């Protein structure tokens, strides 16, 4: 990144883990449209980002996996209401990493010994997965076969390592990146859980506020939304 050094417009983005595979393409798009902007990304847990932002973490743009965290950041006075935006809606799938089932459905969970879901207490996909299990009346049956990952990535690792039989995780993880060709999956109907709307915010303290807004604009642009769609998000 020899020319990155010559750029002086830096945007430090805290990005939810489920965008890990999609976001690099967004950055390429930013480069194309604003060659002078250098986007530096940190992927991680949305909740942890919020804690850090509340304690002064030097981020300019925060892309969360839900809408509540960015709203809290606004409530705490670190961003203005007007900077809140919604950029995507996540999709939930049932994933069979071994590929023994051609089209694994949520009902196939009945035959699994161990089902991995993200921790519903703090991971948005975990909450959604639990709602889906409740709506389909499976929770009482499966309750003691659930294992809880710290986040969707770890939940996928439970299954990918062979320790869990199936996992309820984000679509974005199984159609792109290293897991793309592993196992089989089917989407869980969106009416089984509250929508996984993902929001973000540009922070007041942003080093280069307009540049951060530019990145947001690229993300929300049709070309940006098209990329997200390819990586398993709805708008």
């Amino acid at each position: 990144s020899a020319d990155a050094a010559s750029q002086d417009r830096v945007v430090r983005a805290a990005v939810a883990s489920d965008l890990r595979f999609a976001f690099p393409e967004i950055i390429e798009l930013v480069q194309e449209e604003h060659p002078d902007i250098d986007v530096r990304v940190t992927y991680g847990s949305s909740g942890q980002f919020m804690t850090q932002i509340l304690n002064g973490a030097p981020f300019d743009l925060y892309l969360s996996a839900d809408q509540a965290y960015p709203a809290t950041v606004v409530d705490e006075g670190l961003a203005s209401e007007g900077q809140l935006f919604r950029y995507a809606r996540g999709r939930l799938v049932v994933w069979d990493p071994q590929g023994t089932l051609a089209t694994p459905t949520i009902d196939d969970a009945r035959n699994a010994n161990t089902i991995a879901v993200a921790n519903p207490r703090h991971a948005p996909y975990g909450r959604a997965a639990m709602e889906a299990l409740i709506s389909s009346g499976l929770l009482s049956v499966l309750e003691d076969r659930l294992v809880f990952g710290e986040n969707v990535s770890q939940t996928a690792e439970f299954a990918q390592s062979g320790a869990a039989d199936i996992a309820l995780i984000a679509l974005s993880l199984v159609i792109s990146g290293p897991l793309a060709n592993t196992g089989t999956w089917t989407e869980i109907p969106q009416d089984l859980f509250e929508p996984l709307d993902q929001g973000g915010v540009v922070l007041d303290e942003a080093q280069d506020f307009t540049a951060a807004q530019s990145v947001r604009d690229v993300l929300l642009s049709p070309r940006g939304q098209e990329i997200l769609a390819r990586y398993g998000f709805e708008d």
Partner: protein
Amino acid sequence: MDIDALWLTLRLAALTTVILIALAIPIAAWLAFHRRFYTPVLEAIVALPLVLPPTVLGYYLLVALGSQSPLGQWWTSTFGSPLAFSFNGLLIASVISSLPFAVHPLLTAFTSVPTKLLQASTTLGAGWPRTIVKVALPLSRSGLATSAVLAFAHTVGEFGVILMVGGNIPGQTRTLSIDVYDSVQAFDYSSAASTSAFLLVFSLLVLTTTYTLNYRSSVPRQLASSYPQPVTVIQ
């Protein structure tokens, strides 16, 4: 607070400590008393579990213990239940991840046992095992206590490895430390604070008791009377 988690944590920490001490004694004795040119390498290897981030160590352990691994399969076919996401799996994982803390302080203590006393033991006809149990170990009480304390405390506080290998199953593999972690992630700070405070006070009690007992018994009974006053070795 979660009584199940407390009970589980206690059982795990106590069992891990007992197993670790049982393992650490022969390992440390061998490293201390059987020096070869490669001994420093082995000493370093024992410290290695520390170098990997716990989650990563946990991932590798999960792969090694999971249902796809030979060990995991053998275990399942022998004992009827899988090793990953079980208490036994947790135990193995925390033994491995706390091994350095158990071995190294004991090794230090063994190294400072005067060689002449070990030689006296051998001229009196004692072999390795007797010499270690009767001479080296009693003279290494302080190292043994440190080993036990560090192993216990680290197991109580460990969560990366345990989360990965255990899957955070309530009542089965959810320890207090995972509980605190969950609370923090879920912004339930009051619950995190009360559980943390409990953990700290409880550990303080256990550790203080260990140190006090160790100190008491390291001063021979008959000499104790000569220490009615505070003992300051150097004025």
